[in-house]
């Protein structure tokens, strides 16, 4: 059977060059980077080189990079770290954030912080003026994602960064879906903290990072030893960090050329699906979107049945947000975009990657139309 993976926003295979660089850090260079002997120093050298690579890619200083265990930890760290450093106050985020930010904000609300969740337009885009209007005298942080993982819409971070700077409010950006995929300039965008991850860019799972602009007041949320310049306790995942460093290097080299190819393949997919299938539309912004992401809304079909139907053809796509196990409620992102339920329940995300081919896309197109037709025969129109 054909196997076609179109779920790169959920996770990606580790790049062979990345794995090759990680390998010695399991059984050969195995010291604890905190140890002062040669075994430890070799491990620390691996960490240091990876930190420099990430810093070079973001054009920041290595001291501004903190490694973490995942995008979720980076988001928790940034939002709680900014909030706890101030003790009390008001935060601004949006209704379409990843749960790692949303649920963290909800946890902060339960602890007495105030949170404003700004809305989005029909494309999933935040209006910078809404952010401006939400700012209060006690606003202590703004946290917004760079690209939405479900619909691919890019947020107008430059304008929002401007607003944040004008008001002297630190800005955290969840760039888990954009880091290594499109260019990113923390200075131009006015970003004070930036979450990024490894397993979305052909690096290993279990490692990620947070950029924290020098001088940003932020406290650690994981307590213990004095690792990561006292900002994140715990023995470092050396092989993982080395992998992330190499993944970033590979992205720096391949990102631009790949983005073009992905954009072309994405258009081929959109045209091939939206044309022949009735009652289907693309969700998210038509232009301001991630190169490889195409999310479709199939009216009156339940999305998980499409995912299963395609799965049986060897195709991996995601229903709603693939990051939330077994969750088949309508995506909070689509609800915030005002998508009616009969469309929202039929949301299917295709996310392309560096090995996706035109043949893959054509195979998916070929499978989608008959599947959706058949599912609609079983489903009572208008039931949802």
């Amino acid at each position, binding site marked *: 059977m054909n196997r076609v993976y179109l779920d790169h926003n959920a996770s990606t295979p580790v790049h062979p060059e990345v794995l090759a660089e990680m390998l010695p850090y399991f059984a050969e260079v195995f010291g604890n980077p905190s140890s002062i002997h040669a075994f430890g120093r070799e491990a620390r050298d691996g960490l240091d080189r990876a930190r420099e690579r990430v810093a070079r890619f973001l054009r920041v200083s290595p001291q501004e990079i903190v490694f973490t265990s995942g995008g979720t930890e980076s988001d928790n760290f940034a939002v709680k770290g900014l909030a706890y450093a101030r003790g009390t106050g008001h935060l601004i985020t949006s209704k379409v954030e990843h749960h790692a930010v949303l649920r963290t904000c909800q946890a902060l609300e339960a602890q007495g912080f105030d949170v404003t969740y700004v809305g989005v337009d029909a494309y999933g885009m935040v209006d910078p003026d809404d952010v401006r209007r939400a700012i209060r005298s006690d606003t202590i942080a703004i946290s917004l994602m760079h690209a939405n993982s479900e619909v691919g819409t890019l947020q107008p971070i430059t304008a929002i960064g401007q607003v944040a700077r004008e008001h002297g409010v630190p800005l955290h950006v969840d760039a888990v879906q954009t880091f290594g995929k499109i260019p990113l300039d923390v200075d131009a965008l006015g970003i004070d903290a930036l979450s990024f991850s490894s397993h979305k860019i052909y690096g290993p799972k279990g490692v990620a990072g947070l950029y924290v602009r020098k001088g940003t007041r932020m406290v650690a949320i994981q307590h213990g030893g004095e690792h990561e310049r006292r900002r994140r306790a715990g023995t470092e995942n050396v092989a993982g960090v080395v992998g992330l460093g190499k993944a970033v290097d590979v992205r720096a080299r391949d990102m631009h050329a790949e983005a073009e190819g992905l954009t072309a393949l994405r258009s081929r997919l959109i045209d091939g699906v939206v044309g022949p299938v009735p009652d289907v539309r693309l969700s998210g912004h038509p232009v301001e979107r991630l190169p490889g992401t195409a999310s479709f809304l199939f009216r*009156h079909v*339940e999305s998980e*049945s499409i995912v299963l139907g395609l799965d*049986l053809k060897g195709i991996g796509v995601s229903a709603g947000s693939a990051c939330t196990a077994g969750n088949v*409620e309508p995506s909070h992102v689509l609800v915030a975009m005002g998508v009616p339920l009969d469309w929202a329940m039929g949301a299917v995300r295709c996310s392309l990657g560096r090995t996706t081919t035109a043949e893959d896309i054509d195979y998916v197109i070929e499978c989608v139309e008959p599947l959706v037709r058949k599912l609609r025969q*079983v489903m009572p129109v208008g039931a949802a």
Partner: protein
Amino acid sequence: MRYSPTLVDHFLNPRNAGLMRDPDGVGEDEYVGCGDLARFFLRVQHDRAVEVRFQTYGCGPTIAAASAASELCRGRTVDDLCQLKAEEVEGALEWLPEDRKHSAEIVAGALRAAARDHLSRGRRGV
């Protein structure tokens, strides 16, 4: 494999899907958590379901469960169908993952509702 081959077959080739005109019993059940819905139609003769049709909105297992149940029920007495258990529907699919047990439940629920609906009509369709 998460799903049994029988389930996959019913999902890919659902039996008895579709509407029924002038049924002798109609019933629905819905799973509130995720909006999955099953609707069954019965044609009854001599207190037995001689034809069963369904529509279902939901994930693959719900479609498969409805299809399997529609075969399971043909020829059974309406009284019998009033007692139909989710376990029997699940058994017809071999197994269901823990987080998809509700598929069998709403299908069984809709069939019981259709059978009861028939009884409440005073057992007309003789």
